[in-house]
């Protein structure tokens, strides 16, 4: 085990995969000479050289599409979006080309590409830079969507994503980059599609992912101390493939569900989860499924108000109590 940051965990995954497989290349804006806008790729240019760590112009549609094309020939590009918010510039490449090429070619072509970068609010960068597109991405069969909450998960899941033969979209979080956690040494892979129970409990299941896992754990501590309520926190880790079995096992134990997500509520990941839980575990539920999401509006800039727009431990605590009524 070593104690490293979420940022370092991602960097180590990149470095290990670059070392292991000569087909892996890293491309994106400011990833090389500038060491990454969020310093995730720091030092990689020096170590792997300019043919493997490549600075691109600000042309998301062009360079994401280029990475896809190269992946059809067996290159394994790991593309950085400085923010996932900029995916919309490359929407056609991501959702028409990446998601559909395999299908339309009758399975003859596959695209082993990874697109990674931060996708989160909470840093007061306003509506254009605070998108959380995991639901939009996961709406497209053919792609995989990963949202890690801890350094260990970030490393193990990114390594799996790079070795995966389907397009993998890896959504990080600028607020988590500096978080420190235990990460196992060596070539440890975490399979895509495996949820993780981050806290065991008996009274309420919180299903969540990404930064909201940490908020939920904080809320669970408060619920335990102040209300004597035992909360189980299930971290999905990947949105598609979705580990519904782990979710259902927890629901069978607690019979109460709160979904927490840093998503706008309409047609979110939580909407899909709620449908599946009621469909497959209706008789296990002692009450309606509750959900806490981002307040339904574009991301507000004003720093103290943005905190209230997003899920936070206090809002989760209130929602948990409501779910237990």
């Amino acid at each position: 085990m070593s104690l490293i940051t979420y940022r370092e965990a991602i960097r180590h995954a990149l470095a290990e995969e670059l070392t292991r497989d000569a087909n892996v290349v890293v491309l994106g804006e400011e990833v090389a000479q500038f060491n990454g806008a969020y310093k995730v790729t720091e030092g990689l240019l020096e170590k792997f050289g300019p043919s493997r760590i490549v600075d691109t112009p600000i042309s998301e549609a062009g360079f994401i599409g280029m990475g896809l094309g190269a992946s059809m020939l067996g290159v394994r590009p790991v593309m950085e979006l400085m923010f996932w918010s900029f995916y919309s510039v490359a929407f056609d490449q991501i959702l028409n080309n990446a998601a559909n090429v395999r299908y339309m070619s009758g399975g003859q072509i596959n695209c082993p590409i990874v697109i990674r970068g931060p996708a989160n609010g909470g840093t007061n960068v306003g509506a254009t830079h605070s998108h959380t597109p995991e639901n939009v991405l996961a709406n497209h069969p053919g792609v995989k969507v990963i949202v890690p909450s801890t350094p260990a998960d970030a490393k193990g899941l990114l390594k799996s994503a790079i070795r995966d033969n389907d397009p993998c979209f890896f959504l990080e979080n600028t607020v988590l980059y500096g978080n420190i956690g235990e990460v196992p040494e060596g070539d440890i892979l975490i399979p895509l599609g495996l949820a993780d129970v981050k806290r065991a409990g008996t009274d309420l299941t919180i299903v969540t992912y990404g930064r909201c896992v940490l908020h939920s754990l904080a809320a669970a501590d408060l619920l335990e101390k102040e209300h004597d309520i035992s909360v189980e926190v299930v971290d999905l880790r990947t949105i598609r493939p979705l580990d519904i079995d782990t979710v259902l096992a927890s629901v069978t134990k607690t019979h109460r569900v709160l979904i927490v997500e840093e998503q706008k509520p309409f047609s979110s990941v939580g909407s899909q989860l709620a449908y599946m839980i009621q469909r497959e575990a209706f008789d296990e539920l002692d009450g309606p499924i509750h959900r806490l999401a981002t307040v339904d509006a574009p991301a507000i800039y004003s720093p103290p108000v943005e905190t209230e727009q997003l899920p936070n431990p206090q809002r989760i605590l209130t929602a948990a109590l409501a779910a237990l009524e």
Partner: protein
Amino acid sequence: MPLVSQPAASISDQPAVIPPARPSPAASAPINTALAPTAKIALLRTMVRIRRFEERSLRAYQAKKIGGFLHLYIGQEAVAVGCCSLMGKNDHVITAYRDHGHALGVGMEMNPLMAELYGKSTGCSKGKGGSMHFFAPDKNYWGGHGIVGGQIPLGVGLAYGIKYKGLKGAAMAFMGDGAVNQGAVHESYNLAALWSLPCVFVIENNGYSMGTSQARSSAGELARRAEGYGMAHGVIDGHDLYAVRAGMDAYLRAAREQSKPAVVEIRTYRYRGHSVADPDSTYRSKAEIEEYRRTKDPIQVFQNSLLAEGVLTAALAEQIDNEARAEADVSADFAEASPYPTPADIQSDVYWEADNPSQRKSQGRLFFD
């Protein structure tokens, strides 16, 4: 010289050496000789106000009064002020996230701008937009846009609107040297040229897109890409406000009078990092920045020209500077004293219908939880 007599505070952007006073060659262009001395002083004042406003905002950022990004325009003042000074009533402006200079250039007041940076409800966007999203449609200023290149199709749309309504006006669509590589920009060039729309695309070439120099991001010469679309193009010295006015005047006239689009590259330089968060240590030398400050500072260049013309005195320059500093301080006090929006404000300004319920025509729920 007032602009250099200040102690060299760490965040004050001053040229270290005063170049000898000389009039700018572009001062004799008709669009510039037409300016009354008071109008020239007003242009200087706007540039100084931009600089002092931004220096004050930087201090507020360092004091954690401002969140998110803060992209400073310091060093580029002559571009926005020169271009905006040419605006007639049917001319419109749109730009990217480095938008404070254009905002003051079109005549917005400091108070609502500073309050926006502080995230207060008295801000120009009620604290909802932040630094990258200043707007003043009443001043023909359409923002303030965070996605690189995303504003350029909107600029073409402003030009389309001007033409459709039969007005004699022009849209100025500003972008950086990095934005030219977005597909949307090329599509916009084609639309403007194909339909002969009165759009002047202004590339503010400050040499870098974040940490990437022009040479590392762009093939060929930036403005010459217009040739492929049969559009006029040119390059202007953006350190000299007179040159900006003289150069842009011709393109704006062609747009207003003949509905001709153009691509104009204005060469400029930013002194500060890409945003306040940029350590500015990997892609250019301190000596390069110093050289620009020393020899090409747009405020200094214009001030020298006005001194040589006898329009400005050292005492007046000092007064302008002091007033700009005081105005910036007042705006910070105003912002500080203003209230934040409340959580209840999060869901206003999303739908016109929701904000005007008495005139609602549609059915069904607009918001979800």
